[in-house]
């Protein structure tokens, strides 16, 4: 007999809207496991959930996404000046024609559905594994939901040093699209890869990327999220880092009625480094803007360095959120942990809420965190104007200066220049 309460349960309603894709027995099992996990944690998060205190999950839970208009632009595509291997998804579905040939020396790339159709595949030991690890101590229901329902994605195994970055582009063409993508990235010992992501993706976008970085391997990640004002996204990156490995991730976000970006990084090998940075710009004038960065770094190895730098510039009712935690386990001696979250409020209507946390059990560590909220420095603004720089241009200079510490985390000079150009263009479009 059907339980009357089930009708109200957002999880069951959501599940009814998506079919679980077919696959080999192991894939089916991994998806069913994720579903059990999700049910065991009590389903999708509610407004009273502590971890969703600053971001309302309601529209992420709905069976169908609210409509999101597709925005036309004549701006060149991000990264178009760079030689890259392009993999295109349209509203969350792989588009082979728009994508490049997936063959590239030093890396094996396959569509998730192809990998999951095979009985024997490396993805079998990876799909949902890091997501599962990331569920404690804090539940991440939307990540488990993603593992259960993912409609598409790519699995990337890096064995060498591919000559160019892999660019995942997410095009948004349908106003009602509900995209669920799940990617696996496995960087083998000593290998190195750069993953670029861009595009508004869908009306609602759920994305999980599980990243295994083996000993002495390096992973670079640059992501541009943006444009379409009404889009919603809940994204997760789960990373596990081997000895002497390196994980560097930078995200720039502009526009978006709701973005929740979670990064869960775990050090399991000694002497590894993780740099996680983000810059977000929101102007509530055209549409509401809400951006949430939620980061959880676990040090479970010695001599590792983690660095979080998150900056937000908001105005006209735009909202920024930062939740960041550094957990240093008992044996993670000589950990160097740094966390900075700052917001620049361009007017009195914008807001920023931050919850920085440190939890340290080792005794020989260096950890610091800082969180600030401020307005434009009036003295600096006057100084610039007194030299002839008009007020809006002077404000732009100060905004870019504020973001510089996050943007400087991008190592590649041409990528950094490209992102600065786009930032400037955004500022030009949002004057006053």
């Amino acid at each position, binding site marked *: 007999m059907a339980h009357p309460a089930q009708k109200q349960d957002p999880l069951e309603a959501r599940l009814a809207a998506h079919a679980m894709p077919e696959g080999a027995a192991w894939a089916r099992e991994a998806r069913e496991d994720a579903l059990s996990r999700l049910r065991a944690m009590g389903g999708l998060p509610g407004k009273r959930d502590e971890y969703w205190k600053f971001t309302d999950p309601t529209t992420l839970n709905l069976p169908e996404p609210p409509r999101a208009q597709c925005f036309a632009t004549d701006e060149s595509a991000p990264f178009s000046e760079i030689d890259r291997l392009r993999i295109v998804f349209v509203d969350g579905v792989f588009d082979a024609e728009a994508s490049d040939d997936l063959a590239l020396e030093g890396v094996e790339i396959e569509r998730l559905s192809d990998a999951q159709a095979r009985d024997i595949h490396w993805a079998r030991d990876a799909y949902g594994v890091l997501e599962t690890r990331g569920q404690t101590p804090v539940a991440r229901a939307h990540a488990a939901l993603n593992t259960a329902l993912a409609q598409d994605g790519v699995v990337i195994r890096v064995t060498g040093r591919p000559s160019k970055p892999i660019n995942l582009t997410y095009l948004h063409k349908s106003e009602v699209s509900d995209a669920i993508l799940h990617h696996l990235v496995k960087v083998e010992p000593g290998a190195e890869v750069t993953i670029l992501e861009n595009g508004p993706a869908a009306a609602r976008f759920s994305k999980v990327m599980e990243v295994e970085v083996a000993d002495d391997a390096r992973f670079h990640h640059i992501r541009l999220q943006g444009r379409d004002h009404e889009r919603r996204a809940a994204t997760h990156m789960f990373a596990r880092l081997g000895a002497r490995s390196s994980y560097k991730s930078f995200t720039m976000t502009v526009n978006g009625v709701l973005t929740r970006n979670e990064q869960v990084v775990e050090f399991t090998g000694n002497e590894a480094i993780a740099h996680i940075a983000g810059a977000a710009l929101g102007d509530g004038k055209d549409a509401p803007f809400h951006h949430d960065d939620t980061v959880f770094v676990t040090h479970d190895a010695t001599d590792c360095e983690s660095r979080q730098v998150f900056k937000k510039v908001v105005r006209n009712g735009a909202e920024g959120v930062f939740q960041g935690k550094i957990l240093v386990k008992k044996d993670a001696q000589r950990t160097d942990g740094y966390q900075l979250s700052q917001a620049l409020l361009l007017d009195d209507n914008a807001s920023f809420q931050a919850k920085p946390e440190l939890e340290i059990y080792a005794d020989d560590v260096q950890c610091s965190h800082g969180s600030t909220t401020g307005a434009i420095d009036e003295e600096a603004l006057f100084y*610039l104007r007194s030299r*002839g*720089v008009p007020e809006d*241009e002077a404000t732009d200079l100060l905004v870019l200066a504020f973001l510089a510490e996050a943007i400087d985390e991008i190592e590649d000079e041409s990528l950094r220049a490209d992102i600065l150009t786009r930032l400037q263009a955004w500022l030009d479009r949002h004057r006053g």
Partner: protein
Amino acid sequence: MLEIKNLHVSLEEEDKAILKGVDLTVEAGKVHAIMGPNGSGKSTLSYVLSGRDGYVVTDGSVALKGEDLLEMEPEERAAAGLFLAFQYPVEIPGVGNMTFLRTAVNAQRKARGQEEMSATDFLKEIRAKAKELKIDAEMLKRPVNVGFSGGEKKRNEILQMAMLEPAMCILDETDSGLDVDAMKLVADGVNALRSEGRGFLVITHYQRLLNHIKPDVVHIMSDGRIVKSGGPELALEVEENGYADILAEVA
């Protein structure tokens, strides 16, 4: 060049009169100095001229080359040819000194309907001018005034002045915090800019800067007014006898 007539200024927040009828005309090609005790209103005059917030002009007028200065925004005053060398130059983390100056130079040129300066021409010019002021390339790359010593900050002000080529230069206590060598460097920089078409207003508490930048006219300011004007010898009189004698004499 600069014509100040009966200028009355109050603080915006506490309705307190600071300038109580300043009359002053600086001609092109001349260097005028304003001296006066602390609290006489010297720095307020420089802030009001540059367009800083927090002051209310209750009476009087200021014209720069015949144009009403008080009607203009700070950036318009700069484009019209006014330059204030700050007593306390502001540190701007994250904005490179070179980027800042190039933005300023080109913004002014644009406002005046001139073509923007090319990156190469700009670099050539700034290198030459920085060299004269003994400002090394490293300092140009650093964020504006961040980590600069007192002397470096003041030299940076003069470098900006040299690059922007203003018609009317106001120097607010440029000698404060400088040792003799640094003061000489700054003064040499200023003297190099002296020309027929350019006016200077040098605000200083001490006479020593005027040994290096020789003024044509010296004014003594007290309690928001100019109480006495004269030639360079007036500065020497202050140096020898202090302000008290002069102020007693005009009281």
